[in-house]
């Protein structure tokens, strides 16, 4: 039995390149595999071949994928929006256009609305003069609408089909307490004609906390606290249905919330024990509710939250509030639970398909910004992912990448010039006002040009590091003259420090661990002190090499310090020699020390540096083909 397995015991690396066997997957199996792949990876999957593209698209559209969680935070000074993608398990910031984050007396406050449109808005913003509806679930663009006729505070707002319904929240003194208005939010003409409808039932008029859910045709409302009065509003008839108290199967239930998904009306209830302030939540359960009669289907518990999660949900850092109400967002077969007053973790529940067993639960960490108080207002929604969502996510990625690349390089240069203990101070210094910002503008311009030439364009994102450049310039022109700075920059970026470890560390690494006899032997001769090539061990080679390069760089006849001094005729040969020798260091590291690099988790950085190194040498033809033979395969995978 073992023999058969041993024949197949090849790792995936060995498989690369085929082997002649038909190892293609297709059809259902491919779709199943693709559905387990993160949405960001799906973009690559869709480029593999036509069959894979079809599988990727159908996975995005048809498969059950957990919905994204949308979070908007509004504090006194700023608003921010975030989205959580459960597949990749990460929070992303969503860029908000400035108009949507207005603040002031009449500032629109963004809140969540119940919505039955799967790709539609989850947020709205209402102020006395205007109403805006988010054009997409994330809230990156907004559509302005006419505000409803009555002024309202904290109304219940829902998008029922294409109709926007605003209920309650009106001023009791004016007799508008329970007024309901409805308009067609997506009707033609851009305008929105608000029709008054039958007012809310008596029980809801005093604006107790209300939980709302929307189906294609009806708005359902339930009081969040006992006696759990419930009713529904039909947008076709413009009338309210029967009002009744929901008979929650859990007699200890203190808080409820409703949601509508997959054609079912769901009721989430938190039950517990204790009296008055001593009440503590012990269970959270979900039942189905019959839409017409609002009868709770008490025989079947749709979902039950595990005990530890209920405890975590109710935990509020000692504030003693317990679980003051329950947040419940549901979409298709998934639901998010959270504590709306003390926002901490979220709990995602996936209901198994028919025939499966119960539900799967998972905790979701909140983004870092939630920890920072005070937050005035929080609005939460969830929506099924569409490919549009990923446009925003990926754009953020690019910004982050560029920023971190630029920052890394600037820090590296700072460290080289000033030493790593002093550098951070220098980079971040801010001169007191009254002093000139920049001592030498010519210096600054040259530095930035040199940086861009060797490290890549700054782009608009890199401009924020201008202060660091200025500081470097000022310090250096004070200490040593800017020409050396330019040389240092070049040194920093032309792969001398390409490996993220400093030279000393490379040396240590090589000398400590080097017992291998490499496939390719190296000999050292520098033509000055050592004329005949001598065989040296790898550590010695590196040592000789680094010293020699230092000498070259300090040599004014090769690397001129004065502006205007011409470079020597053999400059290119010198550079070629430097690079040829540097390449050997890379080759040695890859051949003999890669495992150590991996254990230090530096392999990605090493690969990136090497990639730049190789592309640079290719660009200027700095190394001969036979020299790069030791790493030929690696290079091909990069360059092609």
């Amino acid at each position, binding site marked *: *039995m073992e023999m*058969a*397995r041993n024949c*197949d*015991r*090849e*790792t*995936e690396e060995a*498989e*690369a*390149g085929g*082997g002649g*066997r*038909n*190892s*293609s*997957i297709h059809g*259902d*199996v491919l779709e199943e*595999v*693709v*559905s*387990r*792949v*993160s949405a*960001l*990876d799906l*973009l*690559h*999957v*869709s*480029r*593999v*071949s*036509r069959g*894979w593209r079809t599988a990727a698209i159908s996975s995005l559209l048809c498969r059950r994928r*957990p919905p994204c969680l949308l979070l908007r935070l509004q504090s006194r000074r700023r608003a921010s929006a975030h989205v959580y993608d*459960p*597949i*990749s*398990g990460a929070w992303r910031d969503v860029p908000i256009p400035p108009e949507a984050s207005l603040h002031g007396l009449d500032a629109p406050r963004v809140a969540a609305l119940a919505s039955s449109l799967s790709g539609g808005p989850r947020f709205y913003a209402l102020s006395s003069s205007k109403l805006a509806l988010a054009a997409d679930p994330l809230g990156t663009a907004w559509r302005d609408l006419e505000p409803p006729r009555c002024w309202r505070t904290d109304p219940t707002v829902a998008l029922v089909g294409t109709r926007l319904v605003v209920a309650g929240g009106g001023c009791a003194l004016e007799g508008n307490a329970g007024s309901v208005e409805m308009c067609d939010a997506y009707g033609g003409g851009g305008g929105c004609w608000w029709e008054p409808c039958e007012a809310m039932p008596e029980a809801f008029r005093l604006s107790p906390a209300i939980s709302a859910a929307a189906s294609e045709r009806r708005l359902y409302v339930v009081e969040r606290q006992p006696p759990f009065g419930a009713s529904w509003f039909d947008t076709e008839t413009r009338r309210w249905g029967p009002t009744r108290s929901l008979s929650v199967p859990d007699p200890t239930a203190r808080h409820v919330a409703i949601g509508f998904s997959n054609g079912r009306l769901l009721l989430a209830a938190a039950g517990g024990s204790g009296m008055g302030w001593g009440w503590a939540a012990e269970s959270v359960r979900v039942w189905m509710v019959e839409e017409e009669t609002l009868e709770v289907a008490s025989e079947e518990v749709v979902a039950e939250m*595990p*005990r*530890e*999660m209920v405890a975590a949900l109710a935990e509020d850092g000692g504030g003693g509030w317990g679980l003051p109400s329950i947040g419940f967002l549901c979409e298709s077969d998934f639901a998010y639970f959270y504590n709306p007053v003390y926002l901490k973790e979220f709990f*995602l529940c*996936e209901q198994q398909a028919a025939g499966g067993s*119960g539900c*799967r639960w*998972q*905790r979701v*960490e909140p983004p870092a910004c939630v920890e920072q108080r005070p937050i005035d207002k929080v609005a939460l929604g969830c929506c099924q992912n569409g490919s549009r969502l*990923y*446009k925003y996510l*990926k*754009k953020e990625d*690019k910004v982050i*990448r560029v920023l971190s690349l630029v920052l890394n390089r600037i820090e590296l240069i700072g460290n080289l010039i000033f030493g790593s203990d002093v550098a951070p101070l220098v980079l971040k210094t801010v001169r007191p006002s009254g002093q000139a910002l920049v001592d030498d503008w010519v210096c600054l311009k040259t530095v930035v040009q040199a940086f861009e030439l060797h490290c890549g364009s700054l782009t608009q994102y890199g401009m924020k590091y201008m202060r660091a450049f200025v500081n470097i310039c000022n310090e250096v022109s004070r200490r040593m003259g800017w020409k050396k700075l330019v040389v240092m920059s070049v040194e920093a970026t032309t792969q001398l420090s390409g490996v993220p470890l400093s030279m000393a560390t490379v040396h240590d690494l090589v000398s400590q661990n080097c017992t291998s006899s490499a496939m390719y032997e190296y000999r050292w001769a520098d033509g000055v002190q050592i004329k005949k090539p001598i065989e040296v061990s790898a550590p010695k080679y590196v040592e000789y090499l680094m010293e020699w390069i230092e000498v070259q760089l300090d040599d004014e006849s090769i690397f001129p310090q004065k502006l205007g001094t011409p470079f020597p005729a053999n400059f290119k040969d010198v550079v070629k020699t430097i690079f040829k020798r540097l390449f050997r260091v890379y080759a040695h590291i890859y051949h003999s020390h890669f495992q150590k690099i991996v254990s230090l988790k530096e392999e*990605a950085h090493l690969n*990136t540096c090497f990639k730049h190194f190789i592309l640079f040498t290719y660009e200027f033809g700095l190394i001969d083909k036979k020299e790069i033979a030791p790493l030929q395969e690696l290079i091909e995978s990069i360059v092609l």
Partner: protein
Amino acid sequence: MAKMIKLVSGDGAEFEVEEEVAFQSKIIKDIVADADDVIPLPTVSSKVLIQVIEYCRKHAAVNSFPLSPSSSAAAAASSSSSISYSKPVSDPALRAWDNEFVKLNNSSLFDIVIAANYLDIEELVDLVLETVADRIKGKQAQEIRRQFNIENDFTPEEEEALRRENSWAFQNN
């Protein structure tokens, strides 16, 4: 004395397995309930059947002590932060064994998943699909093609259109 079930592979080889091992497969469980103890499996080759039986044997021991609902939920809560569609295997030793088990090349994995799907062994199907999905994650299209030996059947114009459409997604580091 454990009851033995006889499984006959596509190429005629016979394998006797204990009942509880064979019952990892829901299909076999159903068949045995109705009919007799010799089950022909014409679509499954011997080599694959051997591997599947090995998996079932290992997992039969675990499944004879079914987890209670609360502890399985706890297992779900304590598993890694990315939501996985397979039932989380809570025993780390078993998980380690599973990881070793799937260190196979892609063709073998596909054969196993097709057989496991046919035999309706949910856990094995999930395990293999997750493994394959892991081999896709984080890779660019060209690497995926190389990994799975797939031919690129897009025309150059189509490729160009795709590239433009999602250009921001394909910036290399």
